[in-house]
């Protein structure tokens, strides 16, 4: 039974990145995703300076490369599917590399893959370096609708219980089936999923009851102030914003090459 990957791998408070205000992290991550996706479809080399962001966050937070890659690559099949047809439709030769003609389709496919991996890695880093409740608190303080944030919190809280319940059902099925690796028939899977839904509904009813007896009136209130430090969080936002703008509007690889050759 595959496990739900635990993205919150780091111990809360264990790194400098973790001590940042979650709002600052959300803003910078969002800006990074916007910057990455704003490049033209044939841009490849100009995107490369943006690798500095995940590398720097990884270095500061101590997230292992392997762990980040493992979680980022989970999105690879979806990413590849997005650009899959580009090489077939866009056959215009864009450049020649060592005698090989590279079409626009392949360049855009590579660009999409690169940009998507960068965006996903930044999101994974955000989740890995911030406890989930602080992420949600940050969203709430950024005026994301409360109902959405509450849904996210509940999803995270009960995801593990649902996983455990599913595992128990699958185990019970396997123990009464033949063979070493019994397969679940489609009809059985259907009734198992239905049963899981009914159990989830029962639990939801009980949780709602538990909330009502403690005075729930439709609003989930929290008592955890976030502390936005201008010198720490403000500087974090400003520095990265400046770098993203620089990378977006100045061709850094060409400039760097010119500077090195000129020197």
């Amino acid at each position, binding site marked *: 039974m595959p496990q739900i990957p635990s993205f919150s791998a780091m111990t*809360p408070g264990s790194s400098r990145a973790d001590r940042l205000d979650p709002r600052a992290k959300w803003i910078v991550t969002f800006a990074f995703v916007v910057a990455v996706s704003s490049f033209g479809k044939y841009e490849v080399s100009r995107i490369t300076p943006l690798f500095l962001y995940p590398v720097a966050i990884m270095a500061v937070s101590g997230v292992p490369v392997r762990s980040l890659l493992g979680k980022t690559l989970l999105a690879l099949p979806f990413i590849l599917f997005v650009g899959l047809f580009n090489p077939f439709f866009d056959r215009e030769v864009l450049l020649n590399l060592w005698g090989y003609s590279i079409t626009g389709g392949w360049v855009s496919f590579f660009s999409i893959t690169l940009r998507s991996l960068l965006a996903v890695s930044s999101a994974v880093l955000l989740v890995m370096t911030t*406890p*989930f*409740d602080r992420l*949600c608190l940050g969203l709430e303080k950024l005026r994301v609708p409360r109902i959405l944030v509450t849904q996210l*919190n*509940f999803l*995270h*809280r009960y995801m*593990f*219980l649902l996983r455990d319940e599913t595992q128990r059902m699958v185990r019970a099925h396997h123990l009464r089936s033949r063979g070493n690796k019994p397969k679940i028939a489609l009809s059985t899977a259907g009734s198992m999923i239905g049963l899981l839904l009914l159990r989830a509904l029962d*639990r939801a009813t*009980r*949780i709602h*009851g*538990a*909330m*009502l*007896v*403690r*005075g*729930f*009136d439709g609003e*989930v*209130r*929290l*008592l*955890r102030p976030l502390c936005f430090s201008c010198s720490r969080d403000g500087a974090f936002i400003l520095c990265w914003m400046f770098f993203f703008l620089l990378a977006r509007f100045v061709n850094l690889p060409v400039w760097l090459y010119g500077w090195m050759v000129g020197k």
Partner: protein
Amino acid sequence: MSHHFLEIKDLCYTYPDGTEALKGLSFRLEHGEAVGVVGANGAGKSTMLLALAGLVIPSGGSVNVGGTLLSKSTLGEIRRRLGFLFQDPEDQLFMPTVFDDVAFGPLNQGLSAREVSERVMDALNGVGAGRLADRPTHRLSGGEKRAVAIATVLSMLPDILVMDEPSSGLDPRGRRLLIGLLKNFTHTRMVATHDLDMVLELCPRTIVLHEGTLVADGPTANIFEDMDLLERCHLEPPLCMQGKCP
């Protein structure tokens, strides 16, 4: 303090499928009394507790909590006075961290941030879980979850505690700690459980339910010595009375 009583009269409840779960229950708990509610599976224990908190609407009879009759308009008041501990702590602990969960009730009562923090830490320290305040609720052990679930109720300063199977799922040490904790409470309290040994230790008075009716109400020792009654209600004497003390 005399308003910490609980009285139910002719309480009836029928499930939508027609099953009669409660058939005219009546009893009264006085201030500071600890009462055990025992009965076989399906006797109506949990349904009765749900009806006390207004989580199921009785089809007949009345619930009086400290002079306030249960109705739609008094639900909030009743729930403020009645602390309800659910059987499964996973249902009770729905917030991301222990602190948030214990603060949920006091925040809904409209208390100030300082008061809420004080209440949360008092409640957590009261159950010996002060060190767990910043922990995610889903990462706690069974005993810790139970202790924190009790703290979520205590933080609301209820007059009456109603507990559904508080010792279920606990290991022997966790169960012993829970009994020690509950012994120190001075609230009016009602414990619905199959753990008759715990009832013997905690509750001087016991109510026996059978098929939705109240069949006995009296001193715990007398009830547990009545073999005919216990057999009729599909119960057995506590292990310690059978010479098999756990």
